[in-house]
């Protein structure tokens, strides 16, 4: 249960806030991916822990959802990394000096946002904590335990919104106000869109999303990564 908020905080370590980053590690994108995946273990354990049917089913639902969202997310991250030719988040930001990645990687951006909902099991992907399961992974929790898990899912959503900014929205780039303010503004904007959309989009069942993910989204994100790789290759290693 604790693993879920811890995953959110650790994933946020590599997000640059203007020029300030908690960790400038060279493999920041992979780190973000690995820390977000800790939710798989955290949520499955949270579902298994209470030894109750409905919460266990909720845990299993998250694993099924994970099998659906994870590979398209990986290809979306690879697309941004390929555009900058680096796994370092700061270098991905500096590769967007001229054109933001969202402009020429729209499919990767959309898939990334869907994955943010999925790994924070919110909005259309709240299925593991669905009302049809009396709360699923949340069914047996109360008090501080429940607070920790709920805080964890919102932390993950915020970390995802924060990571969308350096990956696709040019990081701290912007006129007039300083870079850290642009990072904050853009993060809040993405978060606002996610929260607004989350309340309006219908719930997606994991088995239906698996089909969409594997039949449509994986080929789509591979094509997107290929297009980006060809552009970078044609320009001799430089992004647009």
């Amino acid at each position, binding site marked *: 249960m604790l693993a879920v908020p811890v995953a959110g905080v650790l994933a946020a370590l590599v997000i640059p806030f203007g020029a300030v980053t908690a960790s400038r590690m060279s493999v920041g994108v992979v780190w973000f991916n*690995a820390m977000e995946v800790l939710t798989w273990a955290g949520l499955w354990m949270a579902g298994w822990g209470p030894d109750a049917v409905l919460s266990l089913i909720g845990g299993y639902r998250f694993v099924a959802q994970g099998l659906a969202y994870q590979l398209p997310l990986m290809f979306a991250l690879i697309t941004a990394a390929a555009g900058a030719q680096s796994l370092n988040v700061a270098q991905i930001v500096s590769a967007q000096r001229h054109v933001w990645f969202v402009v020429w990687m729209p499919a990767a951006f959309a898939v990334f946002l869907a994955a943010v909902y999925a790994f924070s099991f919110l909005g259309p992907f709240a299925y593991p904590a669905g009302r049809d399961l009396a709360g699923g992974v949340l069914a047996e929790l109360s008090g501080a335990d429940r607070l920790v898990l709920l805080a964890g899912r919102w932390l993950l959503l915020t970390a995802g919104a924060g990571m969308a900014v350096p990956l696709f929205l040019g990081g701290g780039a912007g006129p007039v106000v300083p870079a850290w303010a642009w990072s904050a503004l853009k993060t809040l904007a993405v978060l606002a869109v996610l929260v607004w959309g989350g309340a309006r989009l219908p719930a997606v069942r994991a088995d239906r999303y698996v089909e969409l993910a594997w039949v449509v989204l994986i080929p789509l994100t591979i094509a997107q990564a290929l297009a980006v790789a060809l552009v970078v290759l044609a320009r001799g290693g430089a992004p647009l």
Partner: protein
Amino acid sequence: MTAAVFWPLAVLAAASGVMVFRFSSMARATISLLVSFLAAGGLVILLGLGYLGVVLILMMVMEMIIMAVFMIAYMMNPAGLIQMSMVHNQRGALAISATVFVFLGSGAVLATWPHQAGGRPSDPTFQLGSALMGTQMLTMIILGSCSSRRWSARWCWRLTGAVMTGSATS
């Protein structure tokens, strides 16, 4: 600093590895194995191989959770969720694992390891990629496209063989 990180991770990796066989629940044993792998991933990061270590953590979390689902699903007792022993054929298993441990351990101690020539590469991830894939990139691409069923399997293997021979001789 390195020692202060190394020893807790090393002890954690070994201890949670042992606990895999001491627990009496499929779920606990799987999570214990996961903890062991996470500590091993930390040790790889400590070696300065950030990419390998982080990928190890990434893959092992997914792999162990999927394994937990399958192990529990395939147990004979109801759903694999009640108490059960994690060991069987104890004497045979002990003999085999002791032999393998001595064999691999003596290899690690007795082998003449090469000395490091020059300093650390500036980008170990890139160096690792080219060492793993460098000359075999074309082979991998063709093998990958073999899995899309449009090509007949025989042609695929012939082409792969030709490319491998070509890259080996060049």
